[in-house]
């Protein structure tokens, strides 16, 4: 609740309130000149979202671990050593002057992951080499016959089935009972019994230590990101995060291949499970964006891209549920930021959906044809991205400049456009990355 009368506000009023708060950043002590820069940048972003022509086209890329490579420290360093993390992220923002902040929180905390024995990802020094970003290690963490467990009680499913499988430290949680047993006095002691088991007690000690590590981490990254904002006037960009329900199933729970087989073997269960995941994803996006006072909610899209499924399958298993999440966020005054890696050419006529309010969502495209994307979403959504990894990686600064200039002059000419890349950047020659920002400043106004 951002205001006393929050529940009586319309979605548009909520949108304005959230953006006012994001743009004003009450309580932040800006360095001289930084507040003006902050206001200018945040206004450009807001204008682009509202499909207006901003004073200049903002440059807001998704840069992954690039600041580490740029500063000459390893990926492992920035996940473990908060001083090196701060040094690298500060250097990136100083050198490149982006219009949106690359939050250092996205680098996570290697110490916390290691302490808990997290297995869904491998990370630098722990399954990938020290100079390689973290990567998802998909497996069938939810079994084919567990859909009903998830559907009936997702929180209990997470606590007693999913968490024990993906965290070594929480393996004993499979012995926990549901707290919803506590309906009257006699059930209190019975529900506490599992907490008397030594293995469970051991795991709770680990949980407390994980909490301490997380506190140390949030203080470090909070200070780093706060300083970037206050001294350089760069606005935070990703306020919260959630997922398309199909991707929660595919990335987090079932794994890609098992989920694709479920489409044929138990389609109704897949649909039912996604219905349960819709409100969970909305709540997660709203809560995180509210806490962070930043109205854009990052939704990375994975398993609905071109080639991953047919249009009919997309219409049945992907879009209705993603749209429901988007509408839930928009209803709360937030802006879903869809990060569509891969191709989305075959989806354009579907995502151009009249039920999604205009000027309230952003689409980052990767290899999608931008002319077609603009034609489809014109007057509907802010479109972003498309600078290809291949140009950053194999091209020269003038190639990046040329590509960016062309995007600005064709796709960006009437506004509603943000310059950036379409798949997370990570490693690329610094001069090529710099060329993107300079092109934005040179041709964007």
């Amino acid at each position, binding site marked *: 609740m951002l205001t006393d009368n929050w529940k009586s506000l319309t979605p548009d009023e909520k949108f304005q309130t959230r953006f006012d708060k994001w743009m004003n950043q009450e309580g932040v002590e800006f360095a001289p000149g930084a507040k003006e820069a902050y206001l200018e940048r945040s206004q450009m972003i807001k204008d682009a979202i509202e499909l207006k022509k901003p004073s200049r086209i903002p440059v807001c890329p998704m840069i992954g671990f690039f600041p580490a490579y740029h500063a000459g420290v390893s990926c492992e360093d920035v996940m473990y050593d908060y001083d090196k993390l701060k040094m690298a992220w500060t250097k990136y923002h100083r050198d490149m002057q982006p219009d949106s902040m690359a939050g250092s929180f996205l680098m996570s905390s290697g110490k916390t992951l290691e302490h808990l024995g997290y297995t869904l990802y*491998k990370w630098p020094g722990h*399954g*990938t*080499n020290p*100079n*390689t*970003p973290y*990567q998802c*290690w*998909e497996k069938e963490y939810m079994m084919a016959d567990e859909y009903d467990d998830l559907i009936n009680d997702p929180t209990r499913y997470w606590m007693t089935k999913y968490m024990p499988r993906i965290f070594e430290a929480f393996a004993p949680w499979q012995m926990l009972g549901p707290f919803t047993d506590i309906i009257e006095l006699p059930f209190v002691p019975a529900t506490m019994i599992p907490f008397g088991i030594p293995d469970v007690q051991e795991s709770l000690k680990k949980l407390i230590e994980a909490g301490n590590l997380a506190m140390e981490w949030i203080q470090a990254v909070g200070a780093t990101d706060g300083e970037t904002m206050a001294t350089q006037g760069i606005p935070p960009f990703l306020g919260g995060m959630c997922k398309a329900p199909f991707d929660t199933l595919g990335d987090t729970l079932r794994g*890609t*291949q098992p989920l*694709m*087989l479920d*489409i*044929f*073997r138990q389609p109704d269960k897949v649909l039912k499970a996604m219905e349960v995941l819709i409100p969970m994803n909305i709540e997660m996006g709203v809560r995180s964006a509210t806490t962070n006072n930043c109205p854009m909610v990052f939704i990375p899209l994975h398993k609905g891209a071109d*080639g*991953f*499924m*047919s249009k009919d*399958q997309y219409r049945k298993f992907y879009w209705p549920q993603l749209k429901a999440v988007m509408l839930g966020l928009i209803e709360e005054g937030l802006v879903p930021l869809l990060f569509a*890696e*891969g191709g989305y050419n075959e989806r354009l006529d579907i995502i151009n959906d009249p039920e999604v309010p205009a000027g309230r969502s952003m689409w980052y495209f990767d290899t999608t044809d931008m002319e077609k994307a603009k034609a489809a979403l014109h007057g509907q959504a802010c479109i972003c991205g498309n600078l*290809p*990894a*291949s*140009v*950053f*990686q*194999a*091209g020269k600064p003038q190639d990046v400049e040329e590509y960016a200039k062309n995007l600005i002059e064709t796709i960006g000419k009437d506004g509603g456009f943000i310059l950036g890349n379409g*798949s*997370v*950047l*990570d*490693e*690329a020659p610094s001069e090529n990355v710099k060329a993107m920002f300079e092109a934005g400043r040179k041709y964007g106004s």
Partner: protein
Amino acid sequence: MQEKLFNSIVEMREEEALALAKESLEGGADPLEMVDLFRKAVEEVGNRYEKGEYFLPELMMTGQIMNQLAELTKDKIVEGSADSGKSRGKVMIGTVKGDIHDIGKNIVIFMLDANGFEVKDLGVDISPEKFVEEAKAFEPQIVGMSALLTLAIEPMKETVEAFEKAGLRDKVKIMVGGAPINDAIREHAGADGWGKDAVEAVSLAKKWVGGA
């Protein structure tokens, strides 16, 4: 019966396909002819994929059906005749150093295998040295490198260079594939070809060694 079985595979009716195959085998059908029918069904799935009628879910489902059908027929095929379909050529494939993604690679392997290639799967996060070492032992005509992440582009280039250094570059054709790959990346890496999906990998392999 043959046609019914063929259709049930091609149209993803898993249970029906398995039941029909079992019935055929128990009724004395020639297992080698059955295997030939399965191969044709996979080819048809590939055709539909190429035409944009089928996508990843169908390829994965076909892979599942095929595994189960292979289980059914393997005991029935007399030893020695099992290798009746001679290999079109040898392909060695892996996800390059620094990248641990394997879904794309596995689909390519399945499609190459179903099209009669002998495929060796090196796994993920494979260093240039390992690629070269394995190539010396396996002697493939084609080497495939897969990647999902942009950071895997440089290791592709390094792997091609390792083949050059080992004096093996002219012995193999090298193909690259994966989300960040396009012709510019192919050229940057020094590979001979690239494809956007498993079907393109198969056509490329056929063009190079198998005869179209």
